[in-house]
């Protein structure tokens, strides 16, 4: 569904992405793992067209994303730090997004709005929200349009345990529907029962991209955190 072909990106002297090629298909749940500043967020932003790669290209359903912005209608994106116009209320924000995405009522999936109990605070200004509540808004917004692809950047960071659990359940429910889910997270224990594939990045390079079973058999570890720890020790 999403194919990246030798994508490179430099920020000045820093090489953020170094010749990354990857294929992501429907029904996969891919964990994008790597140390800080390994280029995970940059890669995600390239997929979304927010960062322009210096070389290489990305296709979405066999269409180059450079020439067509409509593919983003099929992506739900939850940023690492949700930044929204300060003087809007949550209700304003949701209404604006619904208006801009031109969706019909039936496509709207407001499960998370309900389970996170955002309805009670719809009239609060976004600037007054706490970091965790902002994350909830981001999550609700990412799932709101029932997209075929979900890109979640550190989804559980900043959420309380109850909310993180709700979000995980929602992600696994969407995964079962055959959607492509791309998650970055440092909390590997969160990913154990979700992911099917692992992409491991370091210093802008993609070290490996394989299925969780292969990783398990390669390292002989059952848990994702231990398997990754073993790989990091080897380097």
């Amino acid at each position, binding site marked *: 569904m999403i194919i990246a072909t030798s994508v490179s990106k430099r*920020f000045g002297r820093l090489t953020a992405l170094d010749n990354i090629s990857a294929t992501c298909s429907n029904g996969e749940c891919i964990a994008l793992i790597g140390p800080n500043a390994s280029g995970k967020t940059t890669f995600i*932003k390239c997929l*979304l*067209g*927010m*960062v*322009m790669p210096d070389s290489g290209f990305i296709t979405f359903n066999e269409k180059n994303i450079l020439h067509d*912005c*409509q*593919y*983003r*209608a099929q*992506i739900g*994106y939850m*940023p690492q730090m949700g*930044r*929204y*116009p*300060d*003087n809007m209320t949550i209700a304003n924000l949701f209404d*604006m*997004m619904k*208006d*801009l*995405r031109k969706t019909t009522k039936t496509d709207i999936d407001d499960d998370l709005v309900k389970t996170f109990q955002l309805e009670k605070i719809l009239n609060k200004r976004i600037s007054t929200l706490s970091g965790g509540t902002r994350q909830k808004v981001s999550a609700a917004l990412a799932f709101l349009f029932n997209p075929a692809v979900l890109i979640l950047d550190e989804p559980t960071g900043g959420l309380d345990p109850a909310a993180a659990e709700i979000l995980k359940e929602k992600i696994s429910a969407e995964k079962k529907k055959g959607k492509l889910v791309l998650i970055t997270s440092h909390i590997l224990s969160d990913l154990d029962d979700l992911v099917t594939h692992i992409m491991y990045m370091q210093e802008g390079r993609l070290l490996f991209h394989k299925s969780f079973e292969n990783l398990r058999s390669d390292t002989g570890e059952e848990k994702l955190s231990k398997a990754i720890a073993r790989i990091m020790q080897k380097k």
Partner: protein
Amino acid sequence: MQKIIKYVMLDILRNKIVMIYTLFLLIVSLSIFNLEDSSGKGLLSLLNIVLIITPLVSIIFSTIYIYNSAEFIELLVSQPIKRKTLWLSIFIGLAGSMSLAFFIGAGIPILLFAFSDAGIAMLITGLLLSIIFVSIALLASVRIRDKAKGIGMAILLWFYFSVIFDGLVLFILFQFNDYPLENFMAVMSALNPIDLARVLILLRMDVAAMMGYTGAVFKDFFGNGGGVIIAGVIFAAWAFLPLIFSLRKFNRKDL
């Protein structure tokens, strides 16, 4: 596109600065026209205010607005919206509200008290200056990532167009006053939209007679129909070139 323009306009209207700017212009222009006994004198007093305040508010407000909407821009770029559409909508929203503010604040009093050639010229050039400086602000803010630097740049640009440029022109005039510089002056005025606006308005006032030989050359150049068309083309270039450059830059910008 209309939807995004709607949200940009709503956002700007929620911001009280534009209201205050409108009111300020309204109070100033009404009081000037009521204080001066003739509308010509009133226009002359209003001229300097229009030529200084309009570009200043236009460029500073737009620059700050762009930096403050970083979140809005980031949010919309990850949606199925073309970057070009987004950027042009922001331009239209900003240019629309700045010109509307100018029209209500200064345009209506001009139409009421000084409905003359000079008054109309001031109204049109004021609207054009509002749009031109929004466009310049867009270019400055898309090129500079840092907010403080960007706003500093906007102030500097305004300072250049309203003060430094005139200083440079005077310097050249005094250095080369042995040579005939009248045609050169006409060309120089095209390099600064504020100067061009000033010349166009002054030529339609009685004081134009006092501008000497240079004034006569200007009148020859800009006074007739062809000159007005040339001036229009120059204004259009000032409005669209920065916009096109900023759009190009924005299309490739990493957010």
